[in-house]
């Protein structure tokens, strides 16, 4: 009897020990749903390479003494694949279904707030109807503020700074520039472009009511190849500054048309560093083109080494810093929850603070918006202080102002329903 009791006790103890290390070596499958073909395909392809590059770096336990192999505290292995959604919300829902059928519990998406809004809805419904098979949606670039306000969801985590944060910083910067008098807003005609227009008007009305908004244009997403008519229109209004949330080909073709048609005003953008635009800008626009973002090309330290390694391996530039934050936060969340079950990990990631390449960032519990510093950078010639040059142009985006967490933070109206 005593012997049987001892055997049972030892077995139970052994089982407990193995459960504690269950995450080590466990594979966490992630699927990225984003355009891999079409006009915005190059952006998606480049970003997927970034995810696969950093999946290796962040898998497994940390290697002591090697900051280039940070791993994660739980020792899990990250595996990431991509599914092409052709920038269409319907295709994205099919892709989500395919990922769920493959047993994937973590989904990443970023390019296209229209897709993001559809995905958030689909993930909410799926999680409600399939307890035990929940899926977490990690948003790396869709910046529509609604995703952390009216449409906030417990299952959605945003790693990019949303439009309200970026506009607050951009508006503040523009308010300090006394030579800006007439602003033209050019955007893509979907939720993101509409929100950018709305927020910049609101911020400028508050900080510099004397600035005149001389025009606003929304064009179809990823359809326009010839921006010459828009540039002609902008010139006719006499605008000295253009504010645009355009990305991918929409920004690179806009900038190309501006160069060809002799528009010499300032550009305030979100995505100058994204695939295609540095080449289209070339040496034009020095000192005139600005970008507001949560990172830039010359962050220093380990980030610089990784960017150089990425460039050598893929001959491409790495600019989606959210990739790193997702792996760090996911790794920390899994370790804190001691499990890879999405419900526990989501609860663990709320309110989590992580130290990353630009300081300490926090995943705000109220709305799942990452609180992080922002940088205003300007396009200029690469020099010794800021040497990294994207797409071999000889130019770079150099930071001119930093907005720490507490400055860039904006309030939320999210009423989150937790399971």
């Amino acid at each position: 009897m005593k012997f049987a009791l001892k055997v049972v006790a030892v077995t139970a103890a052994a089982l407990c020990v193995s459960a504690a290390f269950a995450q080590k070596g466990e594979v966490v499958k992630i699927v990225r749903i984003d355009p891999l073909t079409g006009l915005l395909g190059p952006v998606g392809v480049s970003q997927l390479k970034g995810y696969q590059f950093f999946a290796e770096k962040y898998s497994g336990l940390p290697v002591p003494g090697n900051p280039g192999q940070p791993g994660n505290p739980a020792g899990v292995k990250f595996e990431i694949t991509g599914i092409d959604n052709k920038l269409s919300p319907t295709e994205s829902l099919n892709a989500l279904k395919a990922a769920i059928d493959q047993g994937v519990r973590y989904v990443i998406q970023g390019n296209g707030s229209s897709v993001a809004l559809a995905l958030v809805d689909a993930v909410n419904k799926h999680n409600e109807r399939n307890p035990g098979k929940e899926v977490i949606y990690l948003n790396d670039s869709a910046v529509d503020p609604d995703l952390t306000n009216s449409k906030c969801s417990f299952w959605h985590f945003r790693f990019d700074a949303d439009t309200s944060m970026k506009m607050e910083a951009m508006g503040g910067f523009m308010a300090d520039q006394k030579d800006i008098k007439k602003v033209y807003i050019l955007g893509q005609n979907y939720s993101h472009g509409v929100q950018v227009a709305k927020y910049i008007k609101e911020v400028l009305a508050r900080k510099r009511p004397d600035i005149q908004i001389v025009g606003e244009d929304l064009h179809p997403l990823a359809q326009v190849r010839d921006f010459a008519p828009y540039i002609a229109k902008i010139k006719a209004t006499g605008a000295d500054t253009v504010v645009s949330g355009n990305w991918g080909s929409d920004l690179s073709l806009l900038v190309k048309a501006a160069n060809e048609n002799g528009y010499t005003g300032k550009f305030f953008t979100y995505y100058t560093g994204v695939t295609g635009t540095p080449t289209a800008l070339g040496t034009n626009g020095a000192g005139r083109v600005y970008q507001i973002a949560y990172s830039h090309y010359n962050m220093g330290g380990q980030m610089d080494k990784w960017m150089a390694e990425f460039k050598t391996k893929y001959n491409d530039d790495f600019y989606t810093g959210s990739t790193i934050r997702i792996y760090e936060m996911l790794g920390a969340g899994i370790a804190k929850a001691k499990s890879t079950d999405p419900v526990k990990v989501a609860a663990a990631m709320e309110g989590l603070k992580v130290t990353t390449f630009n300081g300490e960032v926090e995943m705000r519990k109220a709305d799942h918006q990452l609180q992080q510093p922002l940088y205003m950078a300007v396009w200029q010639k690469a020099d010794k202080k800021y040497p990294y040059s994207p797409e071999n142009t000889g130019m770079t985006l150099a930071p001119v102002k930093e907005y720490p967490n507490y400055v860039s933070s904006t309030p939320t109206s999210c009423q989150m329903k937790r399971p």
Partner: protein
Amino acid sequence: MEFFIISMLNGLSYGLLLFMLSSGLTLIFSMMGVLNFAHASFYMVGAYVGYTVSGVVGFWPALILAPLIVGALGALFERFFLRKVHKFGHVPELLITFGLSYVIFELVQLIWGRIALNFRPPDLLQGPAFTLINHSVHGLRLLWGAAPAELCSAAEAGVRLVCSPFPATRGFMMLVALVMLGSVWLLLTRTRVGLVIQAALTHPETVESLGHNVPLVFMMVFGAGAALAGLAGVIGGSTFLTEPSMAATVGSVIFVVVVVGGMGSLSGAFLASVLIGVIQTFAVAFDYSLGTLAGQLGLQLGTYALGNSLIKLTLSQVAPILPYLFLVLILIFRPKGLLGTRED
């Protein structure tokens, strides 16, 4: 003022590019009754082949060689595939060209990749062809080439000085389109080959009984149509963007041009393409919507009506779909097109 001139030139250059594309399509349709769904794909192949050839021998030889290569591909397609389905009627011919467009789309991505290629125009065409300088006091002035920076910034206060450069690539596009129009017209009306082609259009059996090789004529016409699309591709690809979806973007518009201009009419295609190009370019400039129209007519609309998305829709936002609106209107009011000759 310079806004009007530059916009007019932009619209004309875009319209002439459309004409280069749709002229081949309308030629093929009028000769053979085949609606070539793969025509925009030949445009795309022209751009990609032009990119590769110009990487080897330079842009100017590529301008001649790439259309010839695309024309040869078109002729071969006609000889080995299209001819076989000719006896089954028009619908199978349409289907085979439709299938060809898909095959070309995938082949292009397999050979050249899925990402847009950097097809740069030659150094001669970089920079502006001319610059319009509009000085509010001195008036409008034209300067060949690029204007130096001092001439573009206003020295005195209260003077509005605007420099509008017109890119050389667009000027070249217009030039090539006009030369091409002229030579095709001369070919069709002044040479023997052209007369045979024109006769084969309406009386193919008679022409064949006179001893002319009508199948060979058809093959040459298809090849020539494809070559015209290839030429448009080299120019369009270097001016705009060379990427796998370039066929899809122009594919629908050229059908609109052919229908609006009238099936089988070259001058109709010219008129329709220039009209569509100019109107689409100018439409971007106007921010008038139904709401503003109502306001000007004196109708008082409530805030709910003004906020309605249909009433708020401005002309500049619908500019890309204006060609399709024309298509619908032409089909309702004048189905044979503006200058159409065939009754189909």
